[in-house]
């Protein structure tokens, strides 16, 4: 039987498996207070994913605020934090949007698919801003190079990133590979995507205009990544077949490539009012966020969601993390044009609902109302924690243990050979040769340069514009060992390095994205690292005059109770007026003077 709103009202005391879904008792109590009754299974599904650490940033929010409050004034900033990705003005009517995101845990479970879907996810974020994705980068951390598990994880991750990005036709213009034993049970896979759009064509995740249609398009919905939802399904339905659902998502880069071209044609035809990619929390996230930022209401018929597996229950549909899906808000008169474009690109599209002005997100299943909530309560009013933190016990001792204690090597030659042979300094060609850096024919700098650079040679359909000589440069950097010693300074050094790497190409650094990889926020020592790192990064951004435009927090990177080194990875985007004047890495001619700058 369907757990409908009607049923929930009649059975107020029925126990719900909130704890199994990762919800705390007080959080569940808040849901009941908001609704004035117990939630239905579907409502619980929505709140549990939307209020998860991953979606709500409940532990990091209070610290991330500094990125906004301390942000330097920037004329270039068109869209700041809070949207799918930040957007900066890069001149001549062009704007760039970029963001870095983690896919650490899935990449440990299934390296190829985990890393691949990490690329897929960040690319959809960029698409949802109205942009054409034009390049990707990847910052990777693995355990020791000779560790058995690294041999399993590294090739799969590189293959997954390579295959997905190559298949989308996005040049890979840089990244990092770092080995350190602290990542052995928890590798880091951070993927960055940058996109290009005309300044006046930014799209936002919003659903305004009662009567407008809600369209789900792209791949069909399957039981991907809903290990958690099985709790609900089995609790609510006592149905064995739902007990074992895969936690792994599989990517279809071909579908994503079609989605990219399809979306760009939809934008050019001007038939999209609002758009949102389906990420971690799938339909739950897209519907609540679109509705919350729009006129405030939405009516969705979940039975209309096209399914890959017809046995899916509504709770599972709401929590499914199936990849390569997007949700658009479309004016009724534009629906035929919208559908025609989707059909041209072989992209399935279905109207699943309508925007309303009721202030409620209402969902039905086989005629019964199964969700009736104020969407903002799920999307925006999640719990916020001021987690306790304190300096780690051994921090002072760690810092007094300086290199002065080390013995000076007597044999320089041997030291040099040892350095050259160390995995962290070795050639990255085994990795980079598996990535297409040439596709789109706009790559000005890629490996072995310290920053990637692409020229802006796009012509955007539906926009009048003259050619430009401009380009953008990007670098990502981070050093977990520095950050472990001093998270405040470590985060600043990461920014400074990426900033320098962009600047030395001849580009002017403009904006910052970051991926903050840490252990458990419930550990006060980890939380201290996090607080210090964010404070350091925010202060450094102010000092250098570059705002943070977006990013991602990844907590719970640990094996047992042992956290990874705090690893803030920082991406910097810069603009160069004339790509022909870029400065490549390396000595280009004999007889040139070599000058050391700085101290």
């Amino acid at each position, binding site marked *: 039987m369907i757990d409908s709103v009607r049923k929930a009202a009649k059975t107020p005391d029925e126990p719900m498996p909130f704890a199994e879904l990762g919800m705390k008792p007080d959080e569940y109590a808040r849901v009941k207070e908001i609704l004035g009754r117990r939630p239905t299974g579907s409502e619980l599904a929505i709140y549990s994913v939307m209020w998860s650490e991953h979606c709500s940033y409940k532990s990091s929010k209070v610290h991330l605020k500094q990125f906004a409050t301390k942000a330097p004034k920037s004329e270039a900033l068109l869209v700041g934090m809070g949207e799918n990705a930040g957007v900066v003005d890069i001149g001549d009517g062009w704007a760039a949007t970029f963001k870095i995101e983690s896919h650490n845990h899935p990449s440990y479970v299934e390296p190829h698919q985990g890393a691949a879907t990490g690329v897929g996810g960040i690319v959809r974020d960029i698409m949802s801003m109205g942009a054409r994705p034009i390049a990707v980068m990847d910052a990777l951390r693995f355990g020791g190079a000779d560790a058995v598990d690294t041999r399993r994880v590294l090739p799969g991750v590189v*293959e997954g990133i*390579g*295959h997905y990005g*190559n*298949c*989308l*036709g996005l040049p890979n213009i840089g990244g990092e590979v770092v080995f350190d034993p602290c990542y052995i049970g928890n590798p880091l896979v951070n993927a960055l995507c940058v996109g290009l759009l005309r300044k006046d064509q930014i799209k936002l995740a919003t659903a305004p205009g009662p009567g407008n249609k809600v369209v789900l398009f792209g791949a069909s919905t399957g039981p991907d990544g809903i290990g958690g939802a099985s709790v609900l399904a089995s609790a609510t339905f006592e149905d064995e077949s739902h007990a074992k659902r895969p936690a792994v998502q599989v990517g*279809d*880069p*071909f*579908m994503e*490539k*079609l989605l990219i071209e399809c979306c760009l044609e939809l934008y050019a035809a001007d038939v999209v009012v609002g758009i949102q990619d389906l990420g971690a929390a799938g339909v739950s996230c897209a519907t609540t966020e679109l509705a919350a930022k729009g006129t405030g209401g939405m009516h969705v018929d979940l039975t209309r969601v096209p399914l890959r597996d017809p046995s899916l229950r509504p709770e599972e549909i709401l929590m499914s993390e199936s990849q390569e899906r997007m949700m658009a808000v479309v004016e009724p008169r534009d629906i035929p044009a919208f559908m025609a474009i989707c059909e*041209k*690109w*072989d992209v399935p599209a279905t109207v699943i609902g309508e925007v309303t002005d009721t202030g409620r997100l209402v969902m039905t299943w086989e005629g019964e109302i199964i969700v009736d909530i104020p969407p903002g309560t799920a999307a925006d009013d999640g719990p916020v924690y001021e987690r306790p933190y304190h300096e780690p016990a051994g921090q002072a001792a760690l810092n007094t243990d300086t290199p002065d204690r080390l013995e000076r090597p007597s044999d320089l030659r041997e030291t040099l050979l040892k350095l050259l042979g160390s995995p962290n300094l070795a050639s990255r060609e085994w990795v*980079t*040769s*598996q*990535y*297409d*850096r*040439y*596709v*789109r*024919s*706009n*790559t*000005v700098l890629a490996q072995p340069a310290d920053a990637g650079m692409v*020229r802006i*040679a796009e012509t955007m359909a539906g926009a009048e514009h003259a050619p430009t000589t401009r380009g953008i440069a990007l670098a990502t950097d981070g050093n977990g060992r520095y950050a472990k010693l001093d998270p405040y300074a470590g985060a600043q050094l990461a920014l400074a390095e990426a900033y320098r790497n962009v600047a030395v190409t001849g580009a002017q650094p403009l904006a910052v994205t970051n991926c903050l990889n840490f252990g458990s926020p419930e550990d006060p020592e980890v939380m201290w690292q996090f607080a210090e790192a964010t404070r350091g990064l925010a202060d450094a951004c102010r000092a250098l005059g570059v705002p943070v435009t977006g990013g991602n927090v990844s907590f719970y990177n640990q094996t047992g109770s042992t956290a990874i080194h705090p690893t803030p990875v920082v991406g910097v985007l810069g603009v160069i007026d004339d*790509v*022909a004047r870029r400065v490549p890495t390396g000595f280009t001619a004999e007889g040139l003077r070599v000058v050391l700058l700085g101290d």
Partner: protein
Amino acid sequence: MSAARVGVVTFPGTLDDQDAARAVHLVGAQAVPLWHADHDLKGVDAVFLPGGFSYGDYLRCGAISRFAPIMAELVPAAGAGLPVIGTCNGFQILCEAHLLPGALTRNVSLHYVCRDQRVRIEQTATAWTNAFEQGQEIVLPVKHGEGRYVASGETLAALEAGGHVVVRYAGGNPNGSLNDIAGIRNEAGNVVGLMPHPEHAVEELVGAPGTDGLGFFTSILKNLVDA
């Protein structure tokens, strides 16, 4: 005289179509977009099948694309002498469509490889290589996971005997291709397929170092003007 018109085909999943079109423009010809689902070659003077992952390269590279409506037009036109070139996925499609013999299979390394590759032009008597010198060595990027050319013993012997090997890898074989074959032509010389990407080597600023790929595009112009 109006500019020579070179059709550039886009299949679902094609990636290098814009790059090919840009290279066509660079040599002063006109690039005409051709859509896989149309039964229409738009009267072009030559056709470029670009690289990518058409249909995701699912099943086999090029296996699904060769059934596209545009191919129903292209196959007879190529038979009648229309100059056609396929690079990378385009080469794979030409083989799947039996416009060229043999097949392209998984790289021996089992890895995708993207690198600047030295190749030797072995045959200038084609519509697409007449601007080169016989035996000229040039650098073009390769970027593929399934580029190992294979064919039966007789086919190979016939290719070699007939001078149908157009481009050969030099200084290292990136994928294990038989006889270091990087590209071949058909009997008539109007259809050429190769794994390397000339369209990524046409500007100093971007792509591979140098502009060695330009010769393929100037060749077709010369071919069309001379014709």
